[in-house]
C-alpha cells in the first residue's frame, strides 16, 4: 500500500489542483481529502455520497445553571478562559479537559461528547473518496484527519487497491502532522514567492523529522525565475526529487470553474505536466519501496 500526501506549508500553492490532476492518471486509487476545515476536492470530484458518519471526538463542558452557585472556582482554574462571567461555557475555547468538573464543589458540571462534523464515503469517477467537513470553528481536526486516512486505508485494503492519494492542509500543525504518519511520499507543492519558499523550508523540516520521503512540484514556476532557481537549489541540497515545473497558467482556474481535473481540462498542456510528474513519482515510489525503511509513527493530538 502506498500513500501520497500532498502538502505545501503555504496555502493556495495548488495542492488540490495537482492532486486532482494526478487522480486522473495512474492505477486504481482511493482518494482522501484531509484538508478537513476547508475541503475543496469534492468541487472537482463531484462525489456521490454513499455513507455519512458523524464525527464525535473530545468532550465539551456544560454547567447546569440550576445547580451552579456562581462561586467562580471553575473560572479561576480554567486555563483556557472558556467560562464567561455568567458561567456559560464558551464552546470555541473549551478544550474539554474536565478540570472544571473536578473543581466544581456543587457538581454543576457535566462533560458531553462533542459533535465536530461529518465524514463521508463517496464514489467518484476516479475511485472511492473519503472526505470530511469539520463544523465551522470546531476542534480536533487532527483526529478527523486520522479518521479519514484510516478509513481510506481500509477501503483500499478491502478492494485490493495499492494507492491512496491524500490532499493535505496548509500549515505545519495538528492536521498536517496527522496526515503524515505512515505516508509513502509527501508531495510538497511549492511556488516561487518569498513567503512560500520560507514555508516550504518549514514543512520540509517537518517531513524530514518524521522520516517521510518527500519530493517537490514547482507550481507557477515562471512567476519568479530566480526564486524558482532557489527552490531547485534547495531540492538538490536536501536530496528531494523535483517532479515537475508547472508554469503559471489560467488553465488551473478554468479547470476549477469547469469542475474538471487539470488533466481533463487541458490534456495536452497541464495534462502533459501531470503525466511527467506521475512518472517521476512512480519511479520514486518503486525505488523507495525497494529500500523501504518504514516511517516513524507519531501520536497526534
Amino acid at each position, binding site marked *: 500500500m502506498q500513500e501520497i500526501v500532498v502538502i505545501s*506549508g*503555504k*496555502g*493556495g*500553492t495548488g495542492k488540490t489542483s495537482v492532486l486532482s490532476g494526478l487522480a486522473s492518471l495512474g492505477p486504481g486509487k482511493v482518494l482522501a481529502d484531509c484538508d*478537513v*476545515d*476547508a475541503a*475543496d476536492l469534492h*468541487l472537482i470530484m463531484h462525489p456521490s455520497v454513499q455513507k455519512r458518519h458523524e464525527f464525535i471526538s473530545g*468532550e465539551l463542558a456544560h454547567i447546569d445553571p440550576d445547580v451552579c452557585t456562581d462561586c467562580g472556582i471553575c473560572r479561576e*482554574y480554567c*486555563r*483556557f478562559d472558556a467560562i464567561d462571567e455568567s458561567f456559560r461555557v464558551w464552546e*470555541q475555547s473549551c*478544550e474539554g*479537559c*474536565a*478540570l472544571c468538573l*473536578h*473543581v466544581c464543589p456543587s457538581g454543576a458540571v457535566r462533560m458531553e461528547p462533542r459533535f465536530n462534523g461529518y465524514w463521508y464515503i463517496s464514489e467518484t469517477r476516479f475511485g472511492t473518496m473519503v472526505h470530511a467537513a*469539520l463544523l*465551522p*470553528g*470546531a*476542534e480536533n*481536526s*487532527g483526529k478527523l484527519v486520522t479518521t479519514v486516512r484510516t478509513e481510506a486505508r481500509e477501503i483500499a485494503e478491502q478492494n485490493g487497491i495499492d494507492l491512496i492519494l491524500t490532499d493535505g*492542509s*496548509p*500549515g*505545519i*500543525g*495538528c*492536521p*498536517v*502532522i496527522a496526515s503524515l504518519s505512515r505516508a509513502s511520499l509527501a508531495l510538497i507543492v511549492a511556488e*516561487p*514567492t*518569498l*513567503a512560500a519558499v*520560507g*514555508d516550504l523550508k*518549514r*514543512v520540509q523540516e*517537518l517531513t524530514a*523529522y518524521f522520516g517521510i520521503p518527500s519530493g517537490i512540484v514547482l507550481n*507557477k514556476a515562471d*512567476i*519568479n525565475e530566480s*526564486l524558482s532557481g532557489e527552490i531547485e537549489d534547495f531540492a538538490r541540497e536536501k536530496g528531494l526529487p523535483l517532479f515537475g515545473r508547472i508554469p*503559471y497558467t*489560467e488553465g488551473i*482556474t478554468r479547470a*476549477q*470553474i469547469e*469542475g474538471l481535473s487539470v488533466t481533463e481540462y487541458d490534456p495536452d498542456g497541464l495534462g502533459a505536466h501531470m503525466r511527467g510528474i506521475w512518472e517521476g513519482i512512480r519511479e520514486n515510489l518503486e525505488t523507495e519501496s525497494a529500500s523501504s525503511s518504514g516511517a516513524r509513527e507519531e*501520536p*497526534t*493530538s
Partner: protein
Amino acid sequence: MRIAIASGKGGTGKTTVAVNLACYLQGLDREVTLVDCDVEEPNCHFFLPPEWDFQQAHNMPVPQIDHEACQGEACLQCARECRFNALIWMVNHIMTFPELCHGCGLCSHICPEGAIGETTRETGIMRCGRGQGIQLCSGSLNVREAMAPPLINRLKTFAPERETVILDAPPGTSCPAVAAIHDADFVVLVAEPTPFGLHDFKLSVDVLKQLGLPFGLVINRDGMGDDSLLDYAEREGISVLARLPHSREAARAYSTGGILIDEIPEFFRQYQNMTQMIQAAQKA
C-alpha cells in the same frame, strides 16, 4: 480598533492585505501594530523586513511526575482522567507525552499524593520589531509542534496595544483561525473569485456569524475566475470592501516581498476605499 484578516482557504492573500492595510494606515499617521497570528507559517516579516528588538520563548506547562511519591498502579487517576492521553502507565511508572499535553493542569489537581508538579517546555517563539514604521509582532511555532492556538492567544497579549491592531490570521475555520479572530472588532475576509474561493468563503461566513462578528469581503485577484463570489456577496448583503485586480504585475511584486500600494496606484485606491468602508461599518 482590532481588525482581523482571515480566510477559509489558504493563499488567498491574507498576508498581502494585512501588510498593505497596515502600511496604508501607517501612512495616515496611525499607530499600527501588526500581529502575525499565522504561527505555523508566519510570513508578514518577508514584506516588512523588521529589525527584531525583542524575542521571547513561548512555553507550555507540562506535568512533572515525582515517581517516589506516585502510588503507581494502585491509583492511576491521572492516566484515567487525562482527556488527551498525555499520561500513560508504562509497566512500572507513569510516562508523560508532552506533545499531547494541553497544559490544563488537571493531573496536578487530582493527584491524591501531590506527586504531579509542573514544568514547562518551549513550543515556539514570539518576536517584536519595527519594519516600515510598523510595529510587527510575530509568532513562530516550533516545527513538530501540533498546537498553534496557545501560542496565538499568548502572542495577542504579548503584542503592544495600539490605536490600530491588525491580526493576520491563519487559514481555515478551525481552532487556530478562531483563536486569532474571536476578539476582533471587525474581520476582513479575503477570498478569490473561484469555486474553491467561494466554497471556503461560505465556511468563513458561517464561523463569523456564529462568533457574531461584523465582517466584509475583499475580493483578491479579481477577474481571475468567475462572478459567483460577487453574486453570492450581493445576494447575502455582504459588503465588498475592495476588489484587488488580478495581474501578473501584482503577482510578481508579491513574489519578491513588495508592498503593492507603493508599486501599483490602483492598489492604493483600493486600500483607501477599504479603510473608509471599515470605518463606516464601525460607526454603524
